């Protein structure tokens, strides 16, 4: 599974720390998500989608 978190974060001008605080996780989790080394739970995926005002399937791309 790939994702567009890094791209959207840059578009919204958020740092990894900003996004981590908004979705209530540690910064390391955002780092691992961006490197595709961690698949988020449905709740975290939903929270991230809400921060970027998008749908889950627009951010997380299933191969």
């Amino acid at each position, binding site marked *: 599974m790939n994702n567009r978190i890094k791209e959207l974060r840059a578009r919204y001008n958020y740092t990894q720390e900003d996004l981590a605080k908004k979705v209530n996780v540690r*910064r390391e*989790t955002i780092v691992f998500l961006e490197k595709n080394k961690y698949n988020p739970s449905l709740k975290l995926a939903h929270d991230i989608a809400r921060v970027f005002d998008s749908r889950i399937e627009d951010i997380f791309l299933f191969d």
Partner: protein
Amino acid sequence: MKKGIIVLIVTALVLFTTGVWFFTSKGDLNFFSIAEFAIIIVVVAFAVLLGVKRVSSAKRGEPPEDEMSKKVMRRTASLSYYISLYLWLVIMYFSDKIKFETHTIIGTGILGMAIVFAVCWAVFNFRGTRNE
């Protein structure tokens, strides 16, 4: 934050006790004592790393634990338990072949389990826990 401080306090107590043991032995340390001392230092270093990470996360206003850290801990616990079973089998095999005192065998097993846990944690923490 509280958990992180507790980890740091326990670590300080372990270090203090190890220091007392080291200085009261007055240089009467054999190979196994030195090995045990080195392993304690490794385990303490791991605990300090964990405590510092928790405290720094709390200072940044982030939760000290989140879903990824919990998942890393779960996977670490399951894998290290699995490996520990084989570790005890190896220890049992060697305890039949070579004469060891009971407390040496148990101490080696417990410290071995701690090292296995620390190594598994490091692997999952730096490699990630992707569902494949």
